[in-house]
């Protein structure tokens, strides 16, 4: 059983639907004991960083999430759920994150280097690619083609301090940024695999197959 962490902010149902469709046993819960007992956990997320951290604190989930991750069990973050793993975000002032991955979350610039206006949020399909050859081998992205399209919805992007944790890169209007990370037992994507059609669903099944035992 895995726990889809409910912190009263995001649309969790699509993650649950994806798990159900693939036969991954999952339960939506904001109970820390349920979380700590589960084999794996998913932190989804759509919404504002500050509100999200506030809710995690209010629900007394910050400590349990850190404890869960420290136990080495598989943990997956999606979209805002990836950003929350970082040290801090500049969304509406500086907010402290869960600080699992050293680095920060920044807003897309309003204009790119060529001076073109960048539409924010980025809404739509974009490609993910390997930062170096064979980086996806034995990872949840192993069945995915390099440069495959995934579905993104975001105005902020994460910048890890250490390049080793970058699992994939994506280019939005000339800005290359980190679109997924793998750091020990923590896997997280800026895109929404549960909204990325069949290729996205492969990521869930791969994550479950390679990490949940």
């Amino acid at each position, binding site marked *: 059983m895995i726990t889809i962490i409910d912190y009263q902010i995001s649309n969790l149902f699509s993650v649950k639907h994806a798990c159900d469709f693939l036969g991954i046993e999952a339960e939506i819960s904001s109970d820390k004991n349920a979380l700590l007992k589960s084999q794996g956990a998913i932190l989804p997320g*759509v919404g504002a960083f500050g509100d999200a951290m506030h809710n995690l604190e209010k629900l007394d989930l910050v400590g349990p999430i850190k404890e869960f991750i420290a136990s080495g069990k598989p943990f997956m973050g999606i979209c805002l759920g990836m950003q929350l793993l970082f040290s801090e975000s500049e969304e509406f002032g500086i907010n402290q994150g869960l600080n699992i991955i050293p680095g920060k979350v920044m807003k897309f610039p*309003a204009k790119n280097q060529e001076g073109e206006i960048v539409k924010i949020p980025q809404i739509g399909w974009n490609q993910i690619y390997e930062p170096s050859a064979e980086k996806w081998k034995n990872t949840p992205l192993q069945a995915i083609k390099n440069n495959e399209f995934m579905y993104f919805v975001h105005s902020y992007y994460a910048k890890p301090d250490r390049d080793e944790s970058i699992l994939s890169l994506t280019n939005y209007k000339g800005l290359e940024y980190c679109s997924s990370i793998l750091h020990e037992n923590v896997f997280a994507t800026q895109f929404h695999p549960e909204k990325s059609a*069949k290729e996205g669903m492969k990521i869930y099944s791969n994550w479950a197959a390679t990490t949940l035992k």
Partner: protein
Amino acid sequence: MSQNIRVIPKLDIKGPNLVKGIHLEGLRVLGKPEDFAKYYYEAGADELIYIDVVASLYGRNSLHDIVAKTAKEIFIPLTVAGGLRTIEDIRSVLRAGADKVSINTAAINNPSLIREASRVFGSSTITISIEAIKQSDGSYLAYTDNGREHTGVEVLTWAKTVEELGAGEIMLTSIDREGTGRGYDLELTKAVSEKVSIPVIACGGAGNSQHVLEAVEAGANAVAMASILHYGFIEKHKNLSGYHEEGNIEFLKSGREYLPGIDKVDIGDVKKYLHQHNVPCRYS
């Protein structure tokens, strides 16, 4: 490097049926929305839009069952529109499985709903639908209730306002072109795309792939279309059945007289055409 253009089938739904009209009027039953949605998903649709076309008239959105069913087997973003008036209405379609909502009438009647909804659910969840009709002096005015109600609201000013209030994107429909197959209103598409920095979905008028390309060249970030894809689907499924025998089913019974000037295409055809004209999109 430009952004990938999204190709989005728009499904107008009345009761249990997929329907299509012209200028949002004269609705004809085309079949079961679930069948079309599944087919579009398999064919590479980038998102889906479901519109309860009579919801505003009755003040309720009745797509919950269809949305719930879709969300269980279709894993691309789904936008639901029609008759959503309150934060609770929005919450309830999101719970049913929608990823985004699109709001027109309630936003014009109560603009503060946009701010509140985008704060509660995040900007990217809130699409504002603008239904425009060109006036004799060349300006565009926004209409509500499927193009029936005149609001006096000027489209460009309104587009800027909804952006400032926190809307994540704008679904821009030309009522003049809707259902006609005469092409998108490019002047309108261009004017709104230049006015706002949030994404604009062009809607209304696609009769062939070239029209879609023109809308992209006019500045649209996404293109929604109905008849050309629906006809393409119907053409491939000659023995369509299972639709509910309510509403105007003459089209399905009468040997399917298509409107002239509307191609019958697949999503793959549209994307191939865009790809050949160097428009980036999810195509492989």
